[in-house]
C-alpha cells in the first residue's frame, strides 16, 4: 500500500488523467457527479477529482514524511540525551516531555499556527514540535538498555567521548526501533496534517492536499458527497498503509514498541 502511494506520488504527472488545477468539465459552478469521463466526479470549478487526489498524494506524502523527519530529529535527540546521560539531564528532559504529553497535540498545533502563519515550513515545524514525545520516550528506554551493556561500558572505559559513544555505539543499535517508530509516526503526522488542513490551518492553497479537499467540499455535502468521500478515503488508505507496515514489521519480529 505504501509502495503504491510512493509510486502514485512520483508519477502523478503520468497517472493523472487531467490537469488538477484547470477546469476540464463545463459544470457552471456545480460539482459534477462521477461519470465515465471523470470516475470520481469534478469539483465546483470543474476540476477532475481523481487528478486532484493523485496530485494530492505528492503533497500529502511530502508533508507527512518531512514532518516525520522533523519529529524524529527532535524525538531521537531528546531520547538519546536523556537515556545516555541519565540523572538530572534525564529528569529535566522527561519532565519537559510529560508537560508536552499533557497538551492535546492538535490544540497546541492550532495555537502555534494561529500565532505564526500557515506556510508549508511552519506547518511542518509545528507538526514536528507537537508530536515528538512518544518517540523520545521509546528511544530513551532503548538507549538506557543499550548504554548499560558491556560493549558501551567498555568503550567508555577506553576514554571515548560521549558524542562518539552515542553516534558510534548507541545510535546504530537504536536504529531498528527508530525506523519502526518513523513508519508508525508517519501515519500520525499524516492525520495531524489532514486535521489541520481540515480546520483551514494546513498548507495554504492552491496546493491540493487531501485534508483541504475535504474542507473545501463541506459546503456541497448535500449535493456532492463524493467530493468529501474520495479525498477522505485517500487519507485513510495512506494512514492505514503506514500503520499496517509498522505493525506488520513489529509482529513479524515479535517485538513491541513501549507504551
Amino acid at each position, binding site marked *: 500500500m505504501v509502495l503504491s502511494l510512493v509510486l502514485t506520488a512520483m508519477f502523478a504527472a503520468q497517472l493523472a488523467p487531467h490537469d488538477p488545477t484547470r477546469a476540464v468539465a463545463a459544470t457552471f459552478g456545480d460539482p459534477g457527479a462521477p461519470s465515465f469521463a471523470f470516475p470520481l466526479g469534478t469539483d465546483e470549478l470543474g476540476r477532475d477529482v481523481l487528478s486532484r487526489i493523485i496530485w494530492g498524494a505528492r503533497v500529502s506524502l511530502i508533508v507527512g514524511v518531512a514532518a516525520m523527519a522533523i519529529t524524529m530529529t527532535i524525538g531521537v535527540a531528546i531520547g538519546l540525551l536523556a537515556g545516555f546521560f541519565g540523572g538530572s539531564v534525564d529528569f529535566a528532559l522527561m519532565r519537559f516531555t510529560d508537560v508536552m504529553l499533557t497538551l492535546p497535540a492538535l*490544540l497546541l498545533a492550532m495555537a502555534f499556527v494561529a500565532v505564526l502563519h500557515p506556510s508549508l515550513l511552519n506547518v511542518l515545524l509545528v507538526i514536528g514540535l507537537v508530536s515528538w514525545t512518544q518517540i523520545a520516550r521509546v528511544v530513551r528506554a532503548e538507549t538506557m538498555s543499550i548504554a548499560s551493556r558491556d560493549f558501551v561500558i567498555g568503550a567508555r572505559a577506553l576514554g571515548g567521548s560521549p558524542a562518539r559513544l552515542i553516534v558510534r555505539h548507541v545510535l546504530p543499535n537504536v536504529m531498528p526501533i527508530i525506523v519502526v517508530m518513523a513508519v508508525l509516526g508517519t501515519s500520525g503526522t499524516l492525520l495531524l496534517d489532514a486535521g489541520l488542513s481540515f480546520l483551514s490551518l494546513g498548507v495554504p492553497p492552491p496546493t491540493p492536499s487531501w485534508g483541504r479537499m475535504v474542507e473545501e467540499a463541506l459546503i456541497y455535502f448535500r449535493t456532492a458527497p463524493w467530493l468529501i468521500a474520495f479525498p477522505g478515503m485517500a487519507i485513510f488508505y495512506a494512514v492505514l498503509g503506514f500503520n499496517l507496515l509498522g505493525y506488520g514489521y513489529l509482529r513479524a519480529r515479535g517485538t513491541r514498541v513501549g507504551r
Partner: protein
Amino acid sequence: MIAYLIRRIVYGAAVLLGTSIITFIIAFVIPADPAVAMAGAKADPHTLATIRHQLGLDLPLYLQYAHYLGRALHGDLGRSYIRRSSVTQLILSRFPATALLAASAIILSLGLGIPMGMIAAARRGRIADNLLLIVSLALISIPVFWLGTMLLIAGGLYLHSFPLGGFDELRSLALPTLTLALGSAGYYSRILHTNLVEALEQDYIRTARGKGLSAARVLARHAMANAMLPLVTLAGLDLAGLLSGVVLTETVFDWPGIGRLAYEAVFNLDIPLIMGTVLFSAFLVVVANLIVDLLYAWLDPRIRLGEAP
C-alpha cells in the same frame, strides 16, 4: 498512601506550571508584537500602546510571566478579544457539552475496545486475531473529521434519523460519540491485546490453568486483573489525544463545546481565548491523571500499603 497522593498532586501542579510556561511563550514571546497580533495589523498606534500597557508588555519577560501566572492562578485567563467577555466564563459555559461528549465517547470506546482486545488475545494467532488486528488498525487510521462528516451525511441526510449537528436532544449525541469513540476503541483494543498476551505468559496463569480452570475463566478473571491496570492509566493519559479529536468532532457537528470554541478562537485570532482553551485542556488532562492515580492506588495493594510503586 498519603505521601504517595501528595507526591502525585505536587507532580500534577508542576506539570501545569510547565504548560503555563509553554502557553505563555506561544502567546507573548513568539509573535513579534503580541499587541499587533491581538488588535490586528490595521490597529492605530494609540490602541496598540494601550494594549501594550494593559498587557504589561513594557515589563521584562519574567515579570510578564509572573503576572500571567498570578492571574491564571486566580482563575483569570484574560478577556476574549472578539467576544469581549471573560475567557474563564466562556470556557466554563462550554465545558458541560464537551464533558458529556467526552464521557460518552470514553464509555463507548472502552465498551468496544475491551471485548475486541479480549477476543483477539483469546484467539491468538488465529483468523479472529488477525482480523481484529486489521479492524483495530483501520479504526485508528480513519481521519476523525472525515468519519464525522460521512456519518453526518449518512445518518442525517439520507436516513433522516439524526439531526444535522447542534445539540438539542439526546439523539444528537449519538453520531459525535461514535465519531470520537471508534479511533480510541481500536487503540484500546491493541493495548489490551498486548497486555493480555504478556499476562498470559506469566507463571500465575500456568498455576490457574493447572488448577483446572477453563481458558475463558483464566482470561477473564486472572489475566484481565493485571492487564486492566495499564489500560486505566492509558485511558487517563489518552485524554489529551481524545481532546484533539474533540476539536475536530465538535467542529464537524457544530457541537457547542470547548473544541468548537477553540476552533472559533483560532479562526478569529483570539489569542487569550486560544491560550485559555489550551491551558484548560492541560488542566483537564492533569486532573484526569490524578483521578487515575487515585484509582490505581485504590486498586493496587502495593501502593495502598505504602510500598514503592
